[in-house]
């Protein structure tokens, strides 16, 4: 699984499937359960899907960069730097999840959504960003950087 291009393809496929599950299937059910002040569930669903799409895109892109970076010969000589790159990437993904949630909250500030619902949305964004990045790099990092992800 850590060989190129298999890891690139699997990661992209996994990201897309995850988006389909969380944005299409779960998103439909989730938007119907919300009580919104002025918007329709369809309006909210469209922005929810867009934001989850952005999160998925960020997660996939970061993974692909990590695979590319990890397969460079020069990386083998600078594993300390590679550790910093991985850590920076996961922090970037957390920031990305928080930032997307923050923007979504701002857009829907007047809708009066419950905290529990925002928590669910944050979980979904996290699933596509930092958790996705950790999961994919844990299983599919090139051999040189295979043991850098946390808990490996």
């Amino acid at each position, binding site marked *: 699984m850590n060989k190129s291009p298999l890891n690139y393809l699997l990661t992209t496929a996994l990201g897309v499937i995850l988006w389909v599950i969380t944005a299409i299937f779960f998103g439909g059910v989730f938007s119907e359960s919300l009580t919104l002040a002025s918007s329709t569930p369809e309006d909210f669903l469209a922005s929810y899907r867009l934001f989850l799409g952005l999160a998925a895109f960020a997660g996939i892109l970061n993974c692909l960069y990590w695979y590319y970076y990890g397969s460079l*010969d*020069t990386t*083998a000589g600078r594993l300390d730097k590679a*550790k910093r790159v991985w850590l920076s990437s996961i922090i970037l993904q957390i920031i990305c999840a928080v930032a997307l949630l923050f923007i979504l909250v701002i857009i829907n500030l007047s809708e009066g959504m419950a905290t529990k619902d925002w928590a669910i949305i944050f979980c979904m964004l996290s699933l596509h960003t930092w958790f996705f990045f950790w999961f994919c790099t844990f299983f599919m990092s090139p*051999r*040189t950087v295979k043991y*850098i992800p946390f808990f490996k």
Partner: protein
Amino acid sequence: MPKNYLIGIGGTGARVVEATINLCAAGYGPDELSIFLIDPDAGNGNLTRTKTTITNYIKCRNSLQRTADIPIFKTHIKIPPDEKGLVWEIFSDRGTTLSNFINYENTKQTQPELAEFASILFTRNELDTELNEGFRGHPSIGAVVMSNPPQDNYPFKMLFDDLAGSKKANDIRVFLVGSVFGGTGAAGFPTFGSKQILKFHPFAKLLENVSQILLGGALILPYFNFDPDPEAEKTEKMFVTGNDFPIATKAALQYYNEKDLGFDQIYFIGDSLAQKVGKFSTGAKDQENMPHYIEVVSSLAAFDFFEQPEIKGETDKMLFTACRDNKTISWNDLPTSRDPLLIRQTQTALKSLMTNMTVFAYTFLTLGKKILNTQHKEIKDAWYAEYFRFNEKDEKEKVKDPRQMQHKDTLDVFSRFLSDYLFWIAAMDDASGKVNLVDKKMLVNGEPMIGKPFNLINPEDETTRRNIGFLLKNEQENKGKDINEFKTAGLNQVTLKNRNLTEAASKFITIFYEGASRFNKLNYNVN
């Protein structure tokens, strides 16, 4: 299977044995080899270095879990059980002179005519010079004192025990190696080569012209020179200089031509490059010379002798010589076999094994040591993380840590051996610039010098990271790959599955050797 014996006589003999051990460590050698040395100068620097090399080789081999696909330390080197018995020092007392040895003063009283005869054969200087530092270029003295080796004491006991156990013709292959131009070697080579001492010794003789011993030898003609030391020349009464070599050689060769010696096969080895190998010394610890490629050639002669097909019954006399095609030496110039059909194949095997050993030694002593000096949890290299998984805090798991207990001892002895090996191979690339084997400039900071610290180049430095790809001198095959490619295409690709390695130190060594082998396949087109 025939038994193989290599006997190094004198300083040059010791240096050839050192080369032999290093080749065996690389995996180029017979499966089994018994070795001993003959030198009255027990403190001789060359001898001390060789004894250390042999001892460390045996320790390395005994502590390494070997697998069939890893050729290093393949040869089982046998030495006498007591390490002191490795060298026949000839004289039991210090300060022995030829006069003491032949009881000259008493003989003058009891048999004056015999004493008179001795005084015709030997000068007063020769009779009175202490011999514990060798025969100082006077083989006539050595021939007298070496003519009666003690067969009940080690190291000769080892050979005579084997003779007692075997009754097959030519089943014990004895190879003598010594210089023709010095003292001990020049005395010992014809003495042990005479028919009655080994070849047709009563224990070895089977029929009139058939012996259990197949006797071979490498007679080393002048191949080096050394700087004169005017101070030492003033104080020493008896010594040899480089200027004496040609005349000594001529006299010795005339002698060999006239005498019917017991040798079945002799290899004549020499070189006209006459590189300097150090400063002048009469003997003792100061007599330690830089390694020279001719010693490798002499070892190859020994291996060729040991690997020859079995000979039944009477043997034919054979003489071998080899020469260079031009003024430089490369891997393809080394005479690896008497069989023209096998030369290319054996040269390629030698080059592969030596390149693997060199890259292995270099990376083990640099990257390997760095890893061992780094805390376990800090190491994220894939090969390490995969094969050295353990919980540092659990005492029971410490056995998996290559830094702990007996693993550390194993890795320490490997470090010592590999460091000596790298010095040896780097030093062969001498100032003449004509020995195109391994390029010392890619390995060592400064000139390798005896007794001086040996400082390896850091392979991970930005300016030197490509050195590992250019270790072979003037080679078209060098691809110039760097240390990072050694990690990715070498170390990280090693698999220990189905190898049944349980010892952490052996795993560590095997990973580095196989990593080197994989890297060399890509970079040097060997293996």
